[in-house]
């Protein structure tokens, strides 16, 4: 058509214009509609986040102003200075970091071999083991809080990182083993067999071939386990009594006192405390989500 007679040029240009206009129109509908709907959805989803931001920069007086103000007339950064200097927020965060990292380590040490075995090997009790993992997923931690506490006391692990590392590991183990198993299953068996034929031992084949190929699954697991441990509340509340061993979630919870809640401090501290994880989450979100979705399907 591009080579058509000159006499057709004008109507063609008009048709192209109409197509362009309709493309423009469709783009407008698509983007405009997308934006409008997103704005509504995000408005709902982020409303409490806005409340957190706004409260964290209010003075005590503005916190209790009726009717409440949206954004304080004079934004104050004082709350952030106060919580950083008066409260051991850094210690809380460091504790949560150590516990999160420790849990991730221990979890992988247990979940990678178990996931591999479940995915690749035939053995008696395989179904039962899988079912057991599913059952654990169903158990509310509250149910076993007291016996677990007694175990920790007997081991002299109260007020140590270990108490939380092992419990968080156990309560994330089912999910991570399932997830890793689905990744191992997705690796074609021939690749490993080729490695075995080439003279690798089974252990070498696992370490050099299977684990690297399942790396996306490992990363997904790391993120899932770390976040779960970072956010854990009930065990941290029960196993830890010393102020300097508190995790972030429990540390923030103590901003609620017997007589008053320091809402402006609570919100400022929450903001500082959750920021690292929110950023981490945003960085790896794509990965995590794909892992979760595909883990389920594979």
């Amino acid at each position: 058509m591009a080579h058509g007679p000159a006499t057709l040029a004008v109507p063609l240009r008009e048709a192209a214009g109409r197509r362009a206009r309709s493309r423009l129109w469709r783009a407008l509908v698509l983007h405009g509609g997308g934006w409008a709907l997103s704005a509504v959805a995000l408005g709902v989803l982020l409303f409490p986040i806005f409340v957190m931001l706004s409260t964290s920069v209010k003075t005590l007086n503005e916190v209790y102003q009726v009717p409440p103000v949206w954004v304080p007339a004079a934004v104050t950064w004082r709350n952030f200075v106060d919580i950083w200097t008066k409260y051991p927020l850094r210690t809380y965060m460091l504790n949560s970091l150590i516990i999160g990292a420790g849990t991730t380590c221990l979890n992988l040490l247990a979940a990678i071999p178990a996931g591999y075995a479940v995915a690749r090997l035939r053995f008696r009790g395989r179904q039962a083991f899988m079912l057991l993992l599913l059952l654990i997923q169903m158990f509310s931690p509250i149910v076993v809080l007291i016996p677990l506490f007694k175990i920790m006391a007997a081991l002299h692990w109260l007020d140590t990182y270990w108490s939380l590392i092992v419990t968080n590991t156990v309560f994330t183990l089912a999910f991570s083993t399932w997830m890793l198993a689905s990744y191992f299953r997705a690796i074609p068996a021939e690749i490993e067999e080729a490695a075995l034929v080439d003279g690798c031992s089974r252990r070498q084949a696992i370490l050099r071939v299977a684990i690297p190929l399942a790396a996306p699954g490992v990363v997904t697991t790391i993120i899932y386990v770390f976040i779960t441990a970072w956010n854990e509340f009930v065990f941290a509340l029960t196993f830890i009594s010393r102020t300097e061993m508190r995790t972030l979630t429990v540390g923030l919870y103590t901003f609620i006192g017997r007589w008053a809640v320091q809402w402006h401090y609570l919100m400022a501290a929450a903001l500082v405390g959750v920021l690292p994880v929110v950023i981490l989450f945003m960085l790896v979100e794509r990965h995590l989500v794909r892992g979760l979705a595909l883990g389920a399907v594979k």
Partner: protein
Amino acid sequence: MRRRIALAAGAALCIGLLAVPALGGGAVSIRAVWMEYDARYNTFWQQLKKDFEAANPGITVDTVIVPWSEGHDRLVTWIAGNQAPDLAIVGTRWILEFNKMGVVEPVDTFMPKAFTHKFIGPALEARIGGRLYGVPVALSARALYYRSDLIKTPPRTWQEMLAVAQRVAKPGSLYGIGVSGKKFAELTEYVYYLYGNGGDFFVTNPDGSYGRCRVNDAAGVEALQFMTDLVNKYKVTEPNVAENDRGTLQDLFLAGKLAMIETGPWFGGMIQERAKSLPFAVAPMPHNQGKPQHTLLVTDSIIVFKSAKHKDAVAKFLEFAYNDRHRLEFDKDFGMLPVVKTVARNAYFQTPFYRPFIEQLPTAKPWPLVAEWSKVEDVMWDAVTSALLRAKSPRQALTDACREIDQARGVK
């Protein structure tokens, strides 16, 4: 290669975590659990520890601070796990429950007589059957705070209080009197009306123990009826009472939305800190016309656990902690009434603010001491809230509550 480094680093981290040293040294160490009275980050306990350790080399104090809302449940968990501390602050009303577990060491077994003579009479609530089970640490009575710019003469009776509330209330902007209907660590307002109407929780047996629940008698029902009327009939309270507990009610007063509120001496300090310009004064708790005036008296006590290994060190610590300087500092910091006689004479407490609290002490009544108090309190809260929300009539709510309480306590 990178992968191997990552693996090695991960393994090293794991081993590093394993190696976190076990805590606790060789010296004599006592573990103390203190409760957080407000959400400020308090230095009082840390300072006390420092001062004590400086004066007593060889003894260290391991200080654990817990928020009140978690305090009871944490202590129970620790005791159940054989991890009871050496000493802890508790609400005196919990002592019987802990005593029933057989974990409380009476203080008078290892403290000199002179020590127990330090305290003013009303503070020694933990004296049960001739033994002292806890050292009083915090004492409060409840009183009526009112806006002195709106109310010239404070009401003395319920009837006056209602009239004042009706006069000053401006719907939507100023509420007459605060009533809280949200479950809280203690049964806040109902007890003021119950005691102010000559009522009580239990029938007292001839031997002094507590028998049947009696909140469903005329005095108890009338008290709840009056609260319900304030809320639903006269509408002089804040709207949505079930949303507020004592804390948020105090927030409303601080925000200038309440003309009257019934609470304890700590609130004076909170007003100083958060609403300096708010004109207020304090008066004794109003009572029903024709009935004697009684307010609520609450003490918290330090209990010592039987499992404490170094009772001598604990005794040293208690002797030290009850010097006048630290006691005055405690009372000032946390807004409490003095428990030690010599501190009570201090000029700090001889002010118009403290007078109503201290003058009420001789007639003030404490919580009943029963081992099942947590359960009783929970049931009572539900009864009060159901009446306030008009889910049940006051009589019905309290009759149901009494049945449940008697059943839980095994009282026929």
